[in-house]
Each structure stands twice: as structure tokens, then as C-alpha cells.
């Protein structure tokens, strides 16, 4: 945009002034940092514009009106058009005041940030929501598997599951009944693996996971819980 020429003029003027003043050594350094700050601001001020409404309508299962409402809410919270991890953690932590939701928010962020560029744009956001709210059970289970598989190698190991479980238990905070014991996440992981790991090889693959979940009535029922959220 036309911001760039203006700042380059400013920089030129500053450079001329600096040449005039002999003892501006210290000021040069601060001016340099100030310029870098300005650069940063300009970079971050780059607006991210999402794809057109028709394209998003085609790629997701939301209607036009729903997309409009979603985008308005999204843009209000993040005027720059993207969410970075800190903002994401902030927002998610507001819903769990008693515990520490930042670890789970971190995993969630990685699950939403499908192209792993460090920020969640509106497209990522809406694709994720489309799977979670309007997707088939298979897709939802796929998404959940992707969330648990932290290093995205196609297997859920016990360590990954333990991390996820600890993150979930962290959200509870400390004031719980019964009192949260340190082994609770680990025990929970053991149960999970006993249920899911059919061939007992210590990892859960996507097929084992989907198979087992489809055979579990509770899980199937709970997957349908949030159909009407939007």
C-alpha cells in the first residue's frame, strides 16, 4: 500500500539529520530499533483476507449466512484476520477459569493450524469447525485422532496420550472432587490404551482408533452432541 513510500521518506529524512549531528551514536541505535519496530508493525498490519464467500461455501458445509456470522465474529476478535497462538490460548483460557488451559489450547491450535504456519486464518478456523460440527462421524474421529497424534506420524503413543491427558486434567485446576491425584492422567491413559490398542503393540493407529470408537455406544452418542452449536 501507500504506507511504504511515506515511511521510506521518513527514514531518509532521519538519515540526513543523523549525518548533521556528530554525536548521535546512541541515537542511531535507537533509531534503528525504532525502524525495526515500525517494520514489524507494518508486517503485522498486513491484512489477511480470506477467500471469497462462494469458495468457502463450497469447501465447508456451512451456509452463506452462517459463514457471514462466523466471519463477523472472527474478524471482530482478530481484526488482522489471523489468530496467533498466544491470543488463541488467551481466548480458550477464558472458558476454564479454574484451571490452566494453555497446554490443551496449544494442542488445539496445532490441530486447527493445518498448514503449520504458526497462525490460524479464517479458512483454517472454518474448515476445522466444519469438520467438528457438520462432518461425518468418521471425519470427526479423524480430527480427534489428529489432535491426539502430536507429532502427526500416524500413531498415538502412550507419551503423546499422556501429554494430552495431562493437558485435559490441567484444565480442571486443583479444586476438584475427588482430589486430583498425580496418577490420574496415567491411569486414564492405561484404560484408554487397554480399550483402543487391539494388537497390544503400544501404539494406537487410526484404524484401531476408528474401529474401537465406532463400536463404543457412548462415544458415538457423544459425538453427535454438538451438532446445533452454530
Amino acid at each position, binding site marked *: 500500500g501507500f504506507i511504504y513510500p511515506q515511511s521510506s521518506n521518513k527514514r531518509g529524512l532521519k538519515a540526513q539529520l543523523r549525518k548533521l549531528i556528530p554525536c548521535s551514536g546512541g541515537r542511531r541505535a535507537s533509531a534503528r530499533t525504532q525502524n525495526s519496530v515500525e517494520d514489524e508493525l507494518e508486517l503485522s498490519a498486513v491484512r489477511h483476507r480470506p477467500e471469497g464467500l462462494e469458495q468457502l461455501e463450497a469447501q465447508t458445509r456451512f451456509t452463506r449466512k452462517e459463514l457471514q456470522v462466523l466471519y*463477523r465474529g472472527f474478524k471482530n476478535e482478530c481484526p488482522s484476520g489471523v489468530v496467533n497462538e498466544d491470543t488463541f490460548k488467551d481466548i480458550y483460557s477464558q472458558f476454564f477459569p479454574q484451571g490452566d488451559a494453555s497446554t490443551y489450547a496449544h494442542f488445539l491450535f496445532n490441530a486447527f493450524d493445518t498448514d503449520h504456519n504458526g497462525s490460524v486464518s479464517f479458512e483454517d478456523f472454518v474448515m476445522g469447525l466444519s469438520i467438528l460440527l457438520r462432518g461425518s462421524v468418521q471425519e470427526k474421529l479423524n480430527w480427534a485422532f489428529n489432535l491426539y497424534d502430536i507429532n502427526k506420524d500416524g500413531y498415538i503413543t502412550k507419551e503423546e496420550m499422556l501429554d494430552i*491427558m495431562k493437558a485435559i486434567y490441567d484444565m480442571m485446576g486443583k479444586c476438584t472432587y475427588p482430589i486430583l491425584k498425580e496418577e490420574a492422567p496415567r491411569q486414564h491413559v492405561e484404560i484408554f490404551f487397554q480399550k483402543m490398542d487391539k494388537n497390544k503393540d503400544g501404539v494406537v493407529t487410526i484404524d484401531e482408533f476408528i474401529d474401537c470408537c465406532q463400536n463404543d455406544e457412548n462415544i458415538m452418542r457423544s459425538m453427535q452432541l454438538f451438532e446445533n452449536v452454530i
Partner: protein
Amino acid sequence: MAAGVAAWLPFARAAAIGWMPVASTPMPAPPREKRRTQDGLIILNVSGTKFQTWRNTLERYPDTLLGSTERDFFFHEETNEYFFDRDPDIFRHILNFYRTGKLHYPRHECISAYDEELAFFGIIPEIIGDCCYEEYKDRRRENAERIQDDEDNDNNNDLVTPDMTMRESMWRAFENPHTSTMALVFYYVTGFFIAVSVMANVVETVPCGSSLNRAKDISCGERYALAFFCLDTACVMIFTIEYLLRLIAAPSRYKFVKSVMSIIDVVAIMPYYIGLVMTDNEDVSGAFVTLRVFRVFRIFKFSRHSAGLRILGYTLKSCASELGFLLFSLTMAIIIFATVMFYAEKGSTASKFTSIPAAFWYTIVTMTTLGYGDMVPKTIVGKIFGSICSLSGVLVIALPVPVIVSNFSRIYHQSQRAEKRRAQKKTRLARIRAAKRGGASAYLQYKRNGLPSDAPDEASKEAGQALVSKVNPTFESQHHHLLHCLERTTNHEFVDEQTYETSCMEMTLANQTRSRSSSVSSSPHGLSSCCSRRNKRKSFHVPNSTTGGGRHGSVQELSTIQIQERPLSNSRSSLNAKLEETAQLNCDQPFITAAIISMPTPPVTTPEGDESAGSPDYSQSNIVRVSAL
């Protein structure tokens, strides 16, 4: 709940699908959803000025008037708009708050009018953005002070409340002499006697004409010794009575004794008593004379009578570092010039500059432009350096003085502002924390009532009535459902601080009683595995390390840890600390399980409750351990 986050609740609920596959118990049913209204434009007519906005924009803050159903009271059917009979100029800022999430304070508006509008629309002022918050608080404080001054002026003319005790009224009389006639009389009497005492001390030393026996004049103090003694006695008696009365009336005697004024009082009257005790001892009469110098401190008693003196003392105290620096730079200059002058004048005969310390006197007198003339340089070099000394004296002394003066005012205002900001921050954070706690406690209240989302009024009443006007029921019910799902996933429940503390307390008491009675029946296997872990942790954060025997000692430590640690924050570190404690508790569990089986009377039901009502995996693990024993 922080404002604006309501828009992200659907996302948080959708993300809850991540908990479903690992949940240990089935999920609760979602709340009944009202028919979703289309997002339409709302017209807000504020005294004729029409504002339009999306309905969703207003509903981003469901705990305000515009965001909740409270606005229905203002709906005007004939024109199909919401009509508010308020100031449209201030309303513009309030509506911008909904749009941008930041509330600004316009400087030209009256602070009380603005406050009223905020209160009407149910917005707490703490949300005001950082850009305008300081200005807002300053104006508010000025206003409050003005109102307070007006009230004080009215109050000072009121009579004292009759139910004040004698002691309190006495103290009040001492502190504010204007409150009663007796206090005023006392005030003037003490002031008069201070003046009399100081004058007597001064006049005592004036030569009063010669007596017949001696050649030289004797001072009035020696001539009229008895009269002066009686005067001194009377003054000291008054001062002593005053001091004792103040000591009796003081609300905190220890604080009173430590205060500066009381020290001055004591120092003022002590010489007299010491003199009474030591009159006959000739050896220490020299010291006794020195002690009389302290009588001059009586003049400082005037600072109770003069506010200006107090302020001067306070400012001197607060600028001690600046004064110290002035002194230090002066000392440096003095030493430099004294050295120079000494070596310059060393050559001249009969020079008064016998040593460098002797030259100090010359330097000080010259630099402060006094110029007594008792010491003057005679050599040309000496005179040159002497003139440099006097010129630099002007600079060295005249320059820091305005700096110190400006430092006074700067430091004074700065400390006031820093304290103000600190206090603001504290109260602000406290209110935000209270609102947060209100949100958490709203959920607990909702659970306790066991009501479905139809009746959120109970929850909203609990959740900080001072801060919110009305709660959007749909949002609250959905948020509670989300928290309920988390509970079901982890098979633990949210409780509040007190319940948690009491259950911890019960567990430690249970541990203590059981450990004392069942120390024999504990298994060595369990002891070794758990105690090794416990011993590792014994070293840290135990205030009184009881190295006494085995389990008793460590259980003792456990209870001290429990009782003395009060983790107030939910930070990860404290969370970890608490988890380790509970882990220590946990490793007591297997023994207790064994103990329960052998003893017929289990005193506390909490651990049992855990096992019976807990998840299958939990009791399973305990059963496994019992059988291992």
C-alpha cells in the same frame, strides 16, 4: 467471564469433541436451545439520535443492559425500535465499546455524568482501556476528594458520637484539637509551656549582672537557680502528664512508642529526670551539663502544633539521597581545594594553612561565600587557587539547590502517582478476579441447585451482583454444559476453595489418626516404595523439619505442609506443588485401605467415598494394592 468471549463459545464447544474418545463417563445432555433468532439490525433510539448495530454485536457482552433481555424493557412497539432517554453523546462511546471491545473515556465529559451512564448500561468502569484509564481514575479521585472535603467540613461541626469510649475520645482530642473546647485548651496550654520552657532555657544563659562575690557576670540561671528550677519542674511535669495521657489514649501503644513524636517527647523530658537522679554525683556532672543540651529538643514538640514543620520533615526524609549526594560532592570539592591550598601555601611563612584539615575550614568558608577572613592565602598561587575555589563554590552550591528543589516536587508527586497507580492496579485486578471467580462460582451454584438452564437467575445472583446486571441464559447454560462435559471426561468434579481445603484437612487428619493406630500393620513393601519418594521430597519446602521417627515424622510434615501452604493462584507451579502433596497423600492410601479392613471403625468417609463413588479404574488400583499386601 471476560466480555467478547461469548462469540468464541461455539468454537470452544466444538473443540470439546476432542475429549469425547477419552471420556470415562457418558456426557450430559446439551441444554435445550431456543430457536435461533436471525442476526438482524437493531435500531437504538437515544433521545432522538438513532444508532444501528447488529444484534450479535450487542450480545457479545451478555452481562450488560444492551446485551441481555433487559433491553426488552425499552422496546418501543410503535416505532419498532429500542428507545433510551439518555445522553446520546456518551452513548456513542458505550456503543463503540460493543463494537471494538474497548471503552474510552472522553476527556471533555463530566466524570459523574459518565459514571451514571456506565452504571445505567451495566458496564463496569474497570473495562476502560489503558489509554484512558489513568485519566478516568484521576478525574474520579479529584471528584471524590472534593466531595470528601465538603463532607469533612460538615462533619467537623458535628458533635462527637456518644458511644465513643473515654479512651477513644481522649485520643481524638489529642489528634484533632478543634473537636472540643477541652482539647483546644490542652493544645494551647502545652504550646504555651513548650514556648516557656524553650525561652527559659535561652534566658538561663544570659548574663544577669554581677553578684557581690564574683568579679565577672553570672548567668541568670545561676542567679535565680531556684526560680528556673521550679519553672523547669513545672514544664516537665506538664510534658510528662501529656506523654502519659497520650500513651494511655493511644490505640496502639507499641506503635505510639515507636513514633517520632513520642521519641522527641521522651528526649525532651529525660534530662530533667536524669538530672534529678544524678545531682549529687560530681564525676558525671560534666555529662549532666551535656545532657541539658537535649532540652532544646523541646522545640521540636512544636511540630505537633505546626503542619508545615511536619511537611518539611517529611520532604527532607524523602529527599535524603539527594541531600546525601550534595553533601558528597561538596566534600569532594572541599578535599580537593583544601589539598591544593595547603600545598600552595606550604611555602609561605607563618601560614595559617598548617594542615589539610586546617585548610578545610578555609575552603568551606570560601566556597559558601562567607569569607570570614581569619585564614587568607598569601602566595600568588594560593590566591589564584583561592579565587578559583570561591568561583567554583558558587557553582557547586548554587547548582544542586534548584535540582534538589525540583527533586522534592518531582519525587513527591511521583511517589503519590506511583502509589495511586499501584492501588488502582490492585483494586482493578481484584475486581476482575472477582468477576472471574463470579463466573466460576456461577457454575458451582448452578450445579448445587441442580436446575436445568431454565433458571439462571440463581446463578446470576450468586455471580457478583455488584458487577453484572443480568446474565444471558443461553450463553450461561451452554458454558455450564461445556464445563460439565469436562467433568465427565476426567471423572472429577469442580469444587470451590473451601470444600477443597476441608477435604484436604480431613484427609490429613484421617492419615494422622490412622497412622498412629495402625503403624504396625503397614506393609514394608509399600513403605519402601512410597517412603523413598517421600524422603526425596522431605528436603524441600518444609518449614520445621521433623527428623523424628519414620512415618509419624513425615505425616507431621505432611500436615504442616497442608496447613501452612495457602496456594492462592492457579499457576502451574502451585498446581504442581499441590499435586505432589496429594501424591504424598495418595501413597498413604494403600496402608489406609489395609487399615480400614482391619479396623472396624473408619472415622472419615472421604477416602472411602473416593473408592466407592470413584471411577472403576480408581478403585481397581486400590484393590490391586490391597491384594498385594
